[in-house]
């Protein structure tokens, strides 16, 4: 597969997943803020941090703007200078898709086109104004449909593996950052107010679509530690960090099979598998509140390193130095 094409697949997956995650976090935070248990900045500042937009936002609008609910949502939804905004993610996903249109199924191309046209059109703006939850929900319906069609209408070949890899690594990063921004509230320094604590934990779960799965899994036993353990380590929950890294590792094994160390991607594959193995031995407890933060820092840093490694080894962002003879055997 052509490296640039793999790169478009990978980033299409990442941007679609990014849009979905941002919509989910915005929707959950909107719900949390409406309950009125927490001051506005405590609700909305974490959204900017999770999206990686805190420094840029503060520089453009000042620190106090993070407390303005509508302003943060506008920024995270419509701002074309904010590369994590819904509009930018959807545009970038479609631009990547356009370049590999010959590879996508007609259904996938139409779904991504429709999502793009919807968000550009008046209907989306009207929904945003009149029915904010409905707006975020519709965006998620678009991305979920799209990712479903990717699995059900496309060849299950390398293109799909790269799209999946992009989705899973993006998702692992989001879940990790959502947990990290609230790690104090989860283990250690609780707010002390049972309603506020529980409200926040529920919002965190909702931000990861983990509310009902968690309740079924924990049989209703709600605690910050249980929520953190679930979202970080639960192997059966498809948005937990552990699940995403393991599944991403499996995808990468299809792209670059173990035992063929001369193939590009094997260094990154080993790094990803190592991270996955390491995470399996992490234990969270009340007695060591910093362990969660340390584990998450490791996950966030290593996931970023894996993405860089993929770029260099497989996606054509490294130097082109391959000699013709080694190319012949590999090609």
């Amino acid at each position: 597969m052509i490296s640039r094409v793999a790169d478009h697949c990978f980033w299409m997956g990442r941007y679609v997943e990014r849009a979905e995650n941002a919509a989910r976090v915005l929707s959950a935070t909107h719900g949390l803020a409406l309950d009125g248990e927490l001051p506005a900045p405590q609700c909305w500042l974490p959204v900017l941090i999770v999206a990686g937009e805190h420094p840029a936002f503060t520089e453009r609008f000042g620190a106090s703007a993070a407390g303005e609910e509508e302003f943060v949502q506008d920024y995270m939804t419509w701002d074309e200078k904010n590369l994590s905004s819904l509009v930018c993610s959807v545009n970038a996903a479609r631009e990547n898709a356009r370049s590999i249109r010959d590879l996508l199924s007609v259904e996938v191309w139409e779904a991504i086109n429709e999502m793009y046209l919807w968000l550009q059109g008046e209907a989306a703006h009207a929904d945003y104004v009149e029915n904010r939850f409905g707006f975020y929900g519709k965006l998620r319906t678009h991305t979920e449909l799209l990712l479903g069609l990717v699995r059900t209408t496309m060849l299950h070949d390398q293109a799909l593996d790269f799209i999946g890899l992009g989705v899973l690594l993006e998702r692992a990063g989001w879940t990790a950052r959502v947990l990290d921004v609230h790690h104090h509230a989860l283990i250690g320094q609780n707010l002390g107010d049972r309603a506020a604590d529980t409200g926040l934990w529920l919002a965190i779960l909702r931000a990861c679509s983990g509310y009902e799965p968690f309740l079924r899994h924990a049989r209703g036993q709600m605690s910050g530690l249980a929520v953190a353990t679930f979202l970080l380590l639960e192997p059966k929950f498809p948005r937990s960090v552990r699940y995403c890294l393991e599944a991403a590792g499996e995808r990468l094994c299809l792209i670059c099979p173990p035992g063929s160390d001369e193939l590009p991607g094997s260094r990154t594959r080993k790094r990803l598998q190592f991270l996955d193995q390491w995470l399996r031995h992490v234990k969270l407890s009340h007695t060591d509140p910093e362990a969660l933060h340390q584990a998450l820092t490791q996950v966030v840093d290593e996931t970023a390193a894996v993405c860089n490694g993929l770029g260099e080894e497989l996606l054509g962002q490294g130097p082109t130095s391959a000699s013709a003879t080694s190319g012949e055997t590999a090609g």
Partner: protein
Amino acid sequence: MSDAASRPTPVELPPAARLFHGYRFLENTYDELLASDGVPRPAFRQAVEVLSRKSAEEVRRCQALVDRALLSRGVTFSVYSDNRGTEKIFPFDVLPRMVSAQDWGRIRAGLEQRVCALEMFLDDVYGDGRILAENRIPANVVLASSGYLPQVRGIRPHGGVRIHVAGIDLIRDSDGVWRVLEDNLRTPSGVSYVLENRVMAKRAFPAAFDRARVHPVDVYPARLGDALRSVSPAPDDPTVVLLTPGPYNSAFFEHSFLARTMGIDLVQASDLFVDSDRVWLKTTRGPAPVHVIYRRTDDAFLDPEVFRPDSTLGVRGLFRAWQKGNVALANAPGNGIADDKAIYPYVPEMIRFYLHQEPTLEQVPTYLCARDEDCAFVIDHLQQLVVKVVDEAGGYGMLMGPQSTAELRSEFRRRILADPRRYVAQPRMELSSCPTWDGERGCFAPRRVDLRPYIVSSRKGQWVLPGGLTRVALVEGSYVVNSSQGGGSKDTWVLKS
């Protein structure tokens, strides 16, 4: 006069003509479908009989359905008006344009003959230069052309083919005679619309299509793929790729379409690199060798080492790899000399010189401003002539004399005198018309058309796609069929004998 509407009462119109009742013929223009009495021409009677069972309302619905389908299928071309690349649909007229089996037989033979002679001309001017030495074509006209690439001199491409794909534009004059208007031998585009138009026309008029007995066109990608593989330097399992300038190119839809239907990789310049004069594709499994490149990038941007050094759409070293015969480029670099508008008047001479035959197809009388007496004539008759720049395409840089202002004519007079070599002029041809749906009036009206057939050349010879892109000037009274300037298209039905 052939103005049906001005007649008293049309007596006993055959049923086939009812849908075209009140059709107002253009003056001094050959209508391809209807004879001057408003009755369909004999070759098309059967198909038109079925078509005319439709009411105007049904045709309107068909047209609306087709327009919607084109938008959702994303059959678009890009417009360079802003840097994000706006996409537009290529307007499509539902009523097909038909070509009789008899006409097509002659056209096909004429196109094969023409491409064969042009191929020999290219080999000659980049080789021994016999035709110039014998003064059948003035050497200075060839050597001064911007289409002549000195770097190509002495190179014979692998597989012996230079014009893998040709698009030869044809028109019909006021007597219905087919004439060659111009040759496109570099990267002719539009064939994807031929295939998409056929899908639409079959949906719109299945019964008429069945009755008409039309040659299929969807074999094109397979034939092109065969031709490209036939010139590969690696005969066993060659890797063929399509090189596109990228998604912002106006023809990106077509590039993606052809790659998809040929089952080959669509690549951009940054996906390729040259090492030891061989071309490699950067893949997720490391470099993979490439043998044939169907490139849709212009010569000037192909290789910054040889042509424009600022090109980011090119591959450094590609020209050397081609020169060494390690990769086939389709079409070959340097073809621009053969489709230069100043060379066009000499094509009949090429056919006589190389093939010892008389040209089968007529062409349009052309004045070369490079010749003093022609230039003087052109300057004096600008109002009657169409002036073209020799190395421009897409209908740009043209002067349509009869519709021009005095100001524009004096501007052209100045430009021609400053650089006569760059200009040719032709009498304005009364392009033939075809009935075309006029959505505003809700009836058929005559609109002018041309035809671009596609000729694919492999190691074994030429193959002509039975059909081609019919472009239609949708604007009333217009002669310009280019999509960039208000043109649309029709499906072209070449009828079986």
